[in-house]
Every structure is written in C-alpha cells, then in structure tokens.
C-alpha cells in the first residue's frame, strides 16, 4: 500500500521546502483510497501497537492515581488540599479553567475554521474535537472535587423536589454548571455527527464481523447518498455556526466566575474576552502536541504536514500577542484607576510572594511565543511542540495566579494569607493529565483520528488545483 502514499512528484522533506507556502500542499497523498488506507489501516488490519501499549500503561497508572486521590478526597474531606479560610479556592478551580480552556479550542478550531473555509482544518479537526470532549469531561469533574459536599452537586439543577427549592440564578456558578453541561453534550453531538461517514467507511472496510457490527451500528446505516450529504452538510454547518458563539459564551462565563465579583484583580470587564482568547491559545498548544503525537504514533506525516503546524503557530502568535495586550490593559487600568487597593494589588503581583511565578507566566505566555515571528521556528516541529508546552504551563500559572493573588491580597490587611499546595493538589493535577491521555489513547485505538471523508475532499481539491 505504501506505493500509493508517495505522490506523483517526490514529496519534499518536511521543513525544507523553500518555496512559497501558498503553493505548498497541505497533504502528500494523491488518491482517495490512499487516505482510507492511511487512516483506517491502523484500526482495521492486524498491526503492532507497541508504542500505544507503552503510552497506555503510563496513562493508566496516572489515571488510577487520579481516581485514587479523588476517592481519598471524598472520604477524608476537602481539607486535604492546601486551601485555607482566606484562599478558599485553589487547584481544582485553576485546573478547571485550564481544562475547559483547552476544551474550547477543539470546537473553535473545527467550527471557526469550517465557517471561514480554512480547508487545512480537515486534517486536524477530528483530533481537536476529541480533545474537546475529554478536556471538558475532566474540567467538569474539577468543580465537583472542589465542592465541600460533592454529593449535592445536583442542587445546582432546577429539578422538582419536596423542599420546594430552586437554584439561585444570579450565581455565576449556575451559569457555569449549565455552560459545561451544554457544551459537553453539544460537543459530543457535533463530534459524533462528523464521525458518521467515517464510521461507514470503516464499516465497509472492516473484515472481521465484530468490527463490522461495531462500526456498522455506530454508522447508523449511512449510505453516502448525495441527498443525505446535502442535508447532512446543512446540519453540520449550522452546528458549526452555533458552536462558535457557544464556545465564546462558555469561556466568557468562566471569566464571569471571577469578573462577577468585587475583589481586586477579579472585577475586570476584560476578563470574558481574554479568557476566550486564552482558551484558544492553550487549546492550540495542546492540539499541536496531539498532532505531533498522532503523526508520530500513527504514521500520519503525509496527512498532518509541517504546513499545518506552521499555520497553527501563526494562530498562536496572534493569540499570544492578544494575551500580552490583555495583561497590559489590566496593569494599566489598575494603575490608572488610582484606587489604593488596585495599585497595591498590582504591586503585589509583580513583587509579592507569588511574583516569581508571575514572571514565569509572563515569559511563557507573552515572550516565548514571539519566536513564531521567524519562519524557521514555525517550521521546526520540535520548537513548536516545546513552545506549545511552555504556553500551557504559562496558561495554568495564569489561572492559579488569578485565584491566588486576589484571594491572598485583598481589602482587609489582617486577613492577607498565602496558599501552600499539598501533595494532593499535585496528584489531582497530574492525575487529570494522565486521565486525559488515557481517554485519548482509547479514542485513537478505536476511532479515526483524522476525518477521512473531509480529507478525501481535501485531496481531491488539491489534486485539481
């Protein structure tokens, strides 16, 4: 089969094409069946999954750690975290904002790029959507772990009860609850819809009856009828159109968790927009890492090319710059307001107990990304991956610092206090990373990580260009 992979002309080695990127092709595959083979091959034919198993074992261990800590948390009580009566919020909140941010990028990528006819999205949107699902699912766990009495989380829902009580709709947490829930379910629907035609392909290519039934059932008997395609696309595009505002609203609401308060450093009108950008920022970072992983693990070099990475790098450069601008706006308005508490807070950010972390955050989120101004960096896979990881570290720091700075240094001097994380704080954080990897590996094992039918279209489009 590998014969098909190599194009008509010898494909240029990644990173060395000096030609104008405009002329450069996004994929290095020529025939439709080559696409099918590339993507579905790993899922269908007997093939060694050594790399996968190694990754899976590591991920599983972390997952066990994650749920182990969660069980201990529910048994022993929330006091095992480093929080105190002044800094009442801590890691779970930061993790939550971080994960939901990553979650947002998936849908943003696939829907926004679809609406703007960015065809290069075809190769990466499935990865991104899957990432969304898992990230949001994990994000959804965090607030529950953060609650004092997690078993009552359902009190946030308006369900008929003998207490004649209802939720308190003015609370940003209620908006949050519904944002996460709606967004999670919506992403599942969106993701699954996109998956249907590919499932049909897998059904038709599958040899063993087990796989045929598995994929067949999920494909719902999709026949690729031109009529169905027409209706299907209408639906899919409309969903994309709905997804974009949904995503923005979701992270805006997360921003409101802080902005809808009166604490210094939280009460900021700029929070919603810059939370959205921040989400996209860190999300793209993770997508880059996932693409690199999938590319390496599933030999998809010819589908996910350096060109994709370059384009994503450009998006990150934009986002990073916007972040810088947002921070600057915060600092300016804090200073310009002239309010003692705001200025004190600003000084604390840069010189207080958490200052080192704050400087690292600025470095990761604002400085490093500027390297993407250089084409060579944009086209070096290693560089992009490293920068993406740094960006995500920076974004996590941003979230924890938003929580820490404000709660540690507020109006009443007598109650200023610092936060010292415990082992359990770290276990939950890294455990959640492991759980994410675990889910992702499962997905990659049983579902096409690249949207087959959309790449088919892309290949055709490029062939005629």
């Amino acid at each position, binding site marked *: 089969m590998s014969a098909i992979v190599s194009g008509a002309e010898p494909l240029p080695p990644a990173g060395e094409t000096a030609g104008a990127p405009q002329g450069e092709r996004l994929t290095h595959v020529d025939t439709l069946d080559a696409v099918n083979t590339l993507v579905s091959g790993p899922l269908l034919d007997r093939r060694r999954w050594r790399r996968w198993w190694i990754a899976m074992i590591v991920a599983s261990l972390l997952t066990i750690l994650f749920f182990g800590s969660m069980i201990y948390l529910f048994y022993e009580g929330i006091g095992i975290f480093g929080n105190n009566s002044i800094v009442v919020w801590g890691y779970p909140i930061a993790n939550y904002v971080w994960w939901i941010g990553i979650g947002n990028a998936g849908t943003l990528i696939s829907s926004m790029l679809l609406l703007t006819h960015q065809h290069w999205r075809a190769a990466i949107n499935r990865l991104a959507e899957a990432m969304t699902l898992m990230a949001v699912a994990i994000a959804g766990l965090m607030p529950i772990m953060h609650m004092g009495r997690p078993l009552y989380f359902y009190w946030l829902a308006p369900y008929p009860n003998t207490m004649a009580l209802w939720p308190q709709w003015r609370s940003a947490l209620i908006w949050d609850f519904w944002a996460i829930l709606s967004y999670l379910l919506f992403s599942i629907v969106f993701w699954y819809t996109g998956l249907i035609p590919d499932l049909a392909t897998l059904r038709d*290519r599958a040899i063993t009856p087990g796989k045929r039934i598995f994929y067949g059932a999920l494909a719902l008997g999709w026949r690729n009828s031109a009529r169905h395609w027409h209706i299907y696309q209408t639906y899919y595009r409309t969903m994309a159109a709905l997804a974009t505002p949904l995503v923005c609203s979701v992270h805006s609401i997360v921003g409101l968790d802080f902005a809808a308060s009166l604490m210094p450093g939280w009460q900021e009108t700029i929070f919603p927009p810059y939370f959205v950008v921040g989400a996209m920022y860190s999300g793209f970072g993770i997508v880059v890492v996932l693409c690199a992983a999938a590319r390496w693990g599933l030999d998809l070099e010819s589908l996910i090319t350096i060109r994709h990475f370059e384009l994503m790098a450009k998006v990150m450069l934009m986002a990073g710059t916007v972040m810088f601008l947002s921070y600057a706006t915060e600092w300016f308005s804090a200073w310009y307001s002239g309010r003692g508490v705001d200025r004190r807070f600003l000084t604390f950010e840069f010189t207080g107990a958490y200052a080192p972390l704050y400087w690292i955050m600025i470095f990761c989120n604002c400085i490093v990304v500027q390297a993407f101004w250089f084409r060579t960096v944009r086209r070096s896979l290693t560089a992009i991956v490293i920068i993406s990881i740094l960006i995500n570290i920076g974004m996590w720091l941003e979230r924890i610092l938003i929580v820490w700075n404000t709660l540690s240094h507020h109006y009443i001097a007598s109650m200023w206090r610092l936060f010292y994380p415990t082992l359990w704080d770290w276990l939950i954080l890294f455990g959640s990373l492991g759980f994410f990897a675990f889910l992702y590996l499962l997905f990659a094992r049983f579902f096409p990580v690249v949207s087959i039918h959309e790449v088919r279209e892309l290949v055709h489009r490029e062939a005629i260009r």
Partner: protein
Amino acid sequence: MSSVLLAAFEDEERLVDAIGKLREERVRIVDAFTPYPVEGLGAALGANPFPVRAAMLIGGLGTAGLCWFIEWFSAAIAFPFDSGSRPHNSWPVFPLFPFEFGVLMAGVFGLAALLWSTGLPGLNHPFFDARLSARASQDKFLLAVAMPETTDMAFRLRDRLAGLGADTVEEAEL
C-alpha cells in the same frame, strides 16, 4: 423499493458530467452515492434540508423560552429570596442559562430531524446488497438510474453509462 442500475465512476467530475448528459436524455436519476459531499449535487437531486433548519430553530428557541420561564418563575414567583437585595426578577442575568441550553437542544433537535429526514438509522438496507455499495464510502462515485422497462433498453443504458466513463455497472434495488 425500485430496481436501479448502479454505475461506478472514477471521480466527481465524470459523475457530474454523466448526470448532466443523462438528464438531457430524459433518463431518470434515482440517487448518487459519493465518498464526500459533492457541492450542489444533493440539491440537484432534490434533497430538502428545510426540516433540519426548522427543527433547530424551534428546538433552540423553544428550549430557551422554557428555561427563561423556569428562571423567572422560580426566582420571582415560586420562592422569591432576598439575595444581596437584588430584584427577584433579575432579568439581566437570566439569558445565560437559556442560551447555553437552547444551543444544546437546537443541536439535539437538529440531529433528530437529520435522522428523520434521511430515514436513518437504516442499518439494514437493500442498497447494501449491491457489491458496489461498499465502494461509495471509499473511492467510487456511484450513480443510480432507474431501471428501464425493457431489457434491450437496459442494455442500451448500460452501454451509455460505460460510454460516460462508468467503469462498472451493476443492477441493484433501492
């Protein structure tokens, strides 16, 4: 349940060109099956996405309305609480929940409508009896034309399809 001739084409262009020519020759096109959506083809074959759009609109707005009502009813009528001396009917914060949930339900209703108007789930379908059916989801562009009454007409149509570039032609039921 009608019997058709399935003609497999190598690519999108040949299929579209064939459809155009056959239309002029008054051949009844039943359906086409393509590995990826071919722009305008579905519309040409008379597919109507209206129900999906309608369902999403109604589902979305309906749900949002219901959510808003629940908010207003619970906060202002059922059990009005003094929460930081905010008005009981705090309408400025009410849109958020309806919006989030409305969008979700729009998606769900749309999916339902999609399945309904495409007749899915159709796990078992005569189309799958055709040998070519499996190729439609991979690399071939299938054209389904109504089977003529008489056999010699059928033979002529087969030749015509081959002439238009179909590399295989197969009898099938739809």
